């Protein structure tokens, strides 16, 4: 066991897989010499050489597209999009190729690619650096989208992602890159992708969250507990596929569900969780499935961001409301 933050844990996962498997290569903008703007790839170029860990030209479509080519020809590229707002030039390669090559070729080719990307708000960043558009990616058939919420999960999920033969969008909640430290198992371990995690059992209301929002919910739970409200917290971990079973089971028990996300409200992840709740547990519901989400607005620049961001109070407000419903 070793105390690690999420950056350390991700770095450790990459290190382990680079050592483990010669077909793993890591590239993207400034991931080599610089070690990434958040230092997730720090030291890896020195250790594994410029052929395996390297800086690419500044072009996201080129990065993901070349990864598709590498993947069909036997490599396992792990590429970085420098920030969530800069994945869009690669959108065509993701939706038209990385997520389709297997189906298009009926299994002849597969594209084991991990696309890493820091996402989310709360760090007072410039425009385009604070977005959470995961539902857009979750809507793309053939793609998997996952989000860890702790260093432990980040490491295990990253190792699983690199070992998976699917294309995986690995979203890293940058707000808690360094904010949470915890004991992390040394060496290799995996966490299955696609499974949610019941972080704390409860009886009055289910709260579904992921990434940096988990911590906000935990803070809200402390206040809720003072009022005698018992919250069951589910860390979704996988945006697609969704672990319906875990959600359904919990909602059947509590009769109430709130989803907490950072992204815009309409067509966001929360609406899907609500749909699952009504489909799987309609007769158990004691209140309409609710959501605490970003507004349907652009993430404001830092001065206004606090209005947009979720915080424990916003979550508590909704918990109180739904319990009283």
């Amino acid at each position, binding site marked *: 066991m070793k105390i690690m933050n999420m950056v350390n844990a991700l770095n450790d996962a990459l290190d382990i897989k680079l050592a483990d498997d010669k077909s793993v290569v890591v590239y993207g903008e400034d991931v080599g010499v610089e070690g990434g703007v958040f230092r997730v790839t720090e030291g890896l170029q020195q250790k594994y050489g410029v052929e395996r860990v390297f800086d690419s030209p500044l*072009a996201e479509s*080129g990065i993901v*597209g*070349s990864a598709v080519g*590498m*993947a069909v020809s036997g490599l396992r590229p792990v590429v970085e999009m420098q920030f969530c707002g800069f994945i869009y030039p690669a959108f065509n390669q993701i939706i038209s190729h990385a997520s389709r090559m297997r189906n298009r070729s009926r299994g002849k*080719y597969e594209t084991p690619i991990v696309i890493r990307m820091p996402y989310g708000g709360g760090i007072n960043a410039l425009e385009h650096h604070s977005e959470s558009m995961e539902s857009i990616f979750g809507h793309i058939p053939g793609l998997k989208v996952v989000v860890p919420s702790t260093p432990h999960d980040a490491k295990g999920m990253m190792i699983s992602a690199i070992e998976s033969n699917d294309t995986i969008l690995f979203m890293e909640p940058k707000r808690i890159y360094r904010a949470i430290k915890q004991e992390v198992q040394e060496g290799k371990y995996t966490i299955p992708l696609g499974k949610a995690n019941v972080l704390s059992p409860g009886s009055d209301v289910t709260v579904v969250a992921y990434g940096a929002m988990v911590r906000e919910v935990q803070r809200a739970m402390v206040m809720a507990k003072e009022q005698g409200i018992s919250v069951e917290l589910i860390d979704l971990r996988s945006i697609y596929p969704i672990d319906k079973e875990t959600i359904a089971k919990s909602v059947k028990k509590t009769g109430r569900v709130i989803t907490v996300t950072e992204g815009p409200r309409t067509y966001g992840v929360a609406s899907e969780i609500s749909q699952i709740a009504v489909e799987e547990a309609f007769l158990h519901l004691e209140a309409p499935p609710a959501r605490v989400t970003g507004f349907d607005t652009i993430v404001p620049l830092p001065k206004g961001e606090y209005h947009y961001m979720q915080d424990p109070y916003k979550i508590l407000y909704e918990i109180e409301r739904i319990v009283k419903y």
Partner: protein
Amino acid sequence: MFKDYNPSDKKTFQVMNEEGKIVNKQHMPEITPERLLKAYKDMLFARTADLMTVSYQRQGRIYTYPPNYGQEAIAGAAGAIMRDQDWMVPAFREMGAMLAKGVTLKELFLYFMGNEEGSNFKNAKNVLPISVPIASQYVHATGIGYSIKYKKENSVVYAFVGDGGTSEGDFHEAVNFAGVWRVPVIFIIQNNQYGISTPVKVQTASESLAIKSIAYGVKGIRVDGNDFLAMYKALRESADICSKGEGPVLIEAVTYRKGAHTTSDDPTKYRTKEEEESWDIKDPLKRLKSYLIKEKLWSEKMEEELLPQYKQEIDRQFVEAENFGEYKAEDVFMHHYAETPDDLKEQLSQYNRFLQWRETRIKNEAKK
């Protein structure tokens, strides 16, 4: 050769003129008569298949199809040069090259009949499926080039795009990355003068497409794409350059799409009969045939004898494709992930329940 035909000099590399006469002995490729003859026959086969595919489409037996007519020398030359270990990254108008790599006509027919199984090339090594989003496949070629270099393999990537495709950002990113990474990729631009109805002068103000190589610090050349010998020679030299680790190379192959853009297109809307006719004399098959006949390697009679065999073989494969079997509900759901997620499985079950319900219902309706 790349020095003699520097794209800045506005020259177009040609070996054989429009009458099939060798006009550039110095650059005549080394190729055995047998190989050359085989190449011609393969091109003839591809053309025959292409024309028959258009008529299958007219008969309503396949869906939309993009004819290759007039452009066969490019795919033919690539087909004659590519080895098993080489990679082919197609656009969608390179039938001859795909066949040469071991893709079967049956598979291609199946694809144009609207079945993904047609892209599961059973016996072909290292051929990607047809890529519909223009130029997007070019970056894949660069990535494959990286793999080859990384694994120190002895392979070359042959990547195809159209003139219209050079306008896309992916064209730029692909060739630029390849230039920086120095990977063994031959980027072949099939300049057939049009992107659907749009003439190449609307695509770019560049003097030529070959000259774009300068922007990426890679070797480039403009080749008469209807001259099999020139294409063969240019590709051969490019492959050597790549094998020596001096790639990538960018080739502009100048040709003409004699057919429609696809079977849904009507070229009379945007080009003249005169223009079309002016390209007839440059036809790639006619030219090579004239040369072969002059060299006594081929005759009209031999061709007459061969064609019916080809037609029969093509039709045989077409009918095989037609009899491929039904597209099952499961086929919709498979091959999305290494392992099908539970929810997709559940969607399939739901759908199967619906199918049963519908069957019963329609039966009941019929009874009434």
